[in-house]
């Protein structure tokens, strides 16, 4: 009898049921989306321009071509980025400089969009390590990033993890509000399940030093991504640092990168 009730209770509480339903949604307006990054690594200096599409249309990059894309460095030097693939704008050989102010200037369909970002000083990864972790009764391998947070100013970080084919999609950001000037051991991602099979594979970690408005964008983006509808506060679009109502962000950031092999 007790077993039956246990089962009943657990089924009711924990095995709630999910069903796909048909919810009619309004058509999207023609809102512009910009994803712009300028870094001290030339591979990353790219501006992607797309458009909002209807919710039930297929998930593809809805490219906006023939836009005028300019980067203005420290208010003077102007660089024009060229469309290398539909919606992808690049300038060969362009590398950002630490401490420089960048302005993005996009004109598409007769509308102008402007965003500013300053590349913060680079914070270097000191080392990476792998350790065992036990949580909810399962053992997993955790990759930890070690670095010294500079004491002098407010730092904002974004961590990117790459392991085999899984680029960490999680938005992992920090602000040194609670650890200014400390030496930091930050657990980044864990590999659970059959991690023995993955011994010898390497993981790459990037530590991005981002500015305050980009931190705010990713902070609100992660809320937008995790929002459901019903029991929680109304979801909203992330706070963009781009003018004229465009979605997306423009970030000038410095990247520090290190790799580590997964070992027993």
């Amino acid at each position, binding site marked *: 009898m007790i077993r039956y009730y246990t089962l*009943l*209770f657990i089924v009711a509480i924990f095995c709630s049921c999910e069903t796909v339903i048909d*919810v009619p949604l309004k058509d999207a307006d023609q809102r512009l989306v910009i994803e712009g990054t300028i870094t001290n690594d030339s591979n990353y200096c790219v501006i992607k321009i797309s458009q909002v599409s209807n919710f039930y249309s297929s998930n593809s990059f809805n490219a906006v071509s023939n836009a005028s894309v300019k980067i203005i460095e420290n208010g003077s030097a102007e660089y024009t980025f060229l469309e290398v693939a539909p919606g992808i704008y690049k300038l060969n050989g362009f590398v950002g400089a630490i401490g420089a102010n960048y302005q993005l200037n996009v004109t598409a369909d007769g509308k102008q969009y402007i965003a500013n970002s300053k590349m913060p000083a680079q914070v270097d990864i000191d080392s990476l390590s792998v350790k065992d972790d036990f949580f909810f009764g399962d053992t997993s391998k955790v990759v930890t990033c070690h670095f010294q947070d500079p004491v002098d100013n407010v730092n904002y970080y974004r961590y990117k993890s790459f392991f085999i084919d899984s680029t960490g999609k999680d938005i992992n950001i920090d602000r040194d509000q609670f650890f200014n000037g400390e030496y930091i051991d930050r657990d980044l991602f864990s590999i659970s399940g059959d991690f023995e099979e993955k011994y010898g594979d390497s993981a790459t970690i990037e530590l991005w030093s981002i500015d305050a408005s980009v931190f705010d964008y990713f902070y609100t983006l992660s809320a*937008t991504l995790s929002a459901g*509808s*019903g029991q929680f506060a109304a979801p909203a*679009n992330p706070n963009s640092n781009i003018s004229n109502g465009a979605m997306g962000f423009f970030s000038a950031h410095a990247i520090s990168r290190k790799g580590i092999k997964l070992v027993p």
Partner: protein
Amino acid sequence: MHLYKITLFLLTLFIVPICKSQNFSINGTITDAKTGEQLIGAIVTVKELPNTGAAANSYGYYTLILPKGTYTLVIRYVGYENFEQKLNLTINEVLNFAIEPKGRELKEVEISAEKANENVTRTQMGVDKLTMKEIKQIPVLFGEQDLLKTLQLLPGVKSAGEGNAGFYVRGGGADQNLVLLDEAPVYNASHLLGFFSVFNSDAVKDVTLYKGSMPAEFGGRLSSVLDVKMNEGNQKRFGAKGGVGLIASRLTLEAPVVKNRGSFMIAARRTYADAFLKLSADSNRRKSTLYFYDLNTKFNYKINEKNRIYASGYFGRDVFGFGDQFSFDWGNTTATVRWNHIFNSRLFSNTSFIYSNYNYRISVESGDLNVKIGSTIKDLNFKQDYQYFVSNKNRVKFGWNVIHHTFIPGKIEGSGIFANAVSNEKRYALESSVYASQEINFTPLLTVNYGLRVTDFRYLGPGTIYTYDENGEVLTTRTAGKNEVVKTYINLEPRINASYLIDEKQSIKAAYSRTVQNLHLLSNSTSGNPTDIWVPSSNNVKPELGDQYSVGYFRNLKENKFELSAESYYKNLYNQVDYRNGAELAFNQLVEGELVYGTGRAYGIELLGRKKLGKLTGWIGYTLSRTERKFREINDGKYFPAKQDRTHDISVVIMYELSKKWSLSTNWVYYTGNAVTFPSGKYQIEGQTVNYYTERNGYRMPAYHRLDFGATYYRKNTATYESSWSFSIYNAYARRNAYTINFRESSTDPNQNEAVKLSLFRLIPAITYNFHFK
């Protein structure tokens, strides 16, 4: 000083001594003859004078004033035998009545406890009372009786969601209800993320919800007052009652301290879902916890005919833990000490000293991560109330109240990435109020109850005081000294109720009330999270104000067997609080910079048809309403529906006494889905699909409906012992009501998006065993 002057002014205004030499007073208490429990709202009528009567106040005390003469007094109360006493009134009399509860017998017509047409004659409108019998019969989730869920079946009261104890009253927010347990405010009235309320129904004696014009003695919240009174305990002999249910067990003990003079009651409840975790093979799982418990205690002692003291307390906690690594617990503590004093037959006083505390604690100790987080709101509250009976047709209430609030919005200490974490500063406030109200029967047909409450709210130092620009960035910073008054708000809250009896069977009523709220809950969920924080009105946050206008028509049919009512309300709300997109509410010293302010309006019609007598009882309620908010920063400053805006809301409750052994019940609810924000498009960022939103609350959840059944089998029922089995089925036709709808990439085709509905609780049967040693 202001308050003192206003008090004096109000006193002179209200109390016009009326001295007629022939009049004598009768006063005393009305109690249960078996237990000595005081009966709130019991009615004393005079056979010879059909329009004269009195109701016992919330301490069971009544006063009648009559000319010299010979009378027959009739005492009535729901579920009790009528009691008559002849009286030759020549001097002021103290008469205490003890009346016999009715046995569980089947009667064709049960004499109603209230004055049969109380519904029509009562001046106050927008008042709902539920009897404990109704609360115990109506089926609920997991069979765990819950007065908050039963209240949601009444028109104008809306559930915060599936199986949720949170509620909305007439378009107000969940934080705009003042929930009182023996006069102590309960800041978080729910357990287990809202699925259960903190009220153990075995410990509860009386429940009243004021959703319309709240009486002047109440204040502090915009929408409603839920006034819950605990049992006092058996004055005559030892008693025990309890129950064993699917998820929790209850035990209540009561006994006299000194027979007929004092008694105590102690009630405990605990859930035991986590007991099953102990069966797990995994050691960490065995060390895990997930439960809540409640402890209610009350003590009372009658010092003499004129003085009586009470002490009551509540302690409840939710505990969630995983191994040694993580623990999270939260709960309320309240304590009330009261002194009832009868100055003379006309003047009754109650003095209360009240303590209330809500806090939560989180502790994480896992590897390098080590952090402890906590938050508290704490009140010390002194309250003085007087009731003065000028005559049967003229009753005055007045009093004052001082509350000292302490807010600890976020306390944090830790190591590693939390090494330099700084706790938020404590905040303090002093909330004082005076009130007076008078109820006058101008003619036997026209009764007016009017009153005024004056609230003085002071935001106090010490602390850092910020001002913000319109984007929420800090403009200035300064330090306020200890007890420095940083900001004072004085607000007048006029209240008026009028009722006009067209005849014995029908009446019309109208009311206006202003209410003020100086405490604001910052929450990002509809159901109320344990980690939601309260902030006071301050130099930045203005008091929330509400104006409510209501009218109603009340009619009884077939010798008061049926009650019909129609009430309509219109509300304007000012200084409503919302927050900026991406606001950080927790551990943010500058949280006030995240807030935005707007207005609101709500209006609706509530229809209720109720059958109170006979084998078959129950009601049908229907509400048609609209609730909107307006913020400059949201939806381009246009009105948008609040999430609790539900156009239609229907509830049907039927209870049937099948035989001496069996009683049956069923209820059905239907309501329009909440107003919600769904995406109107999508785009890609870093290869991830992101939903695109265009307007706040521009869509609707699917309509919600559900049917429940309940049955009670009385196994034994004697003068000293009663036992019963309760059976219930929640969501009998297993409707998959939407709890949330998520918009995301399809699990089968990542190239497509889909809407996924999450539903909880499909067809939940439950069984509970109850016993009572009387």
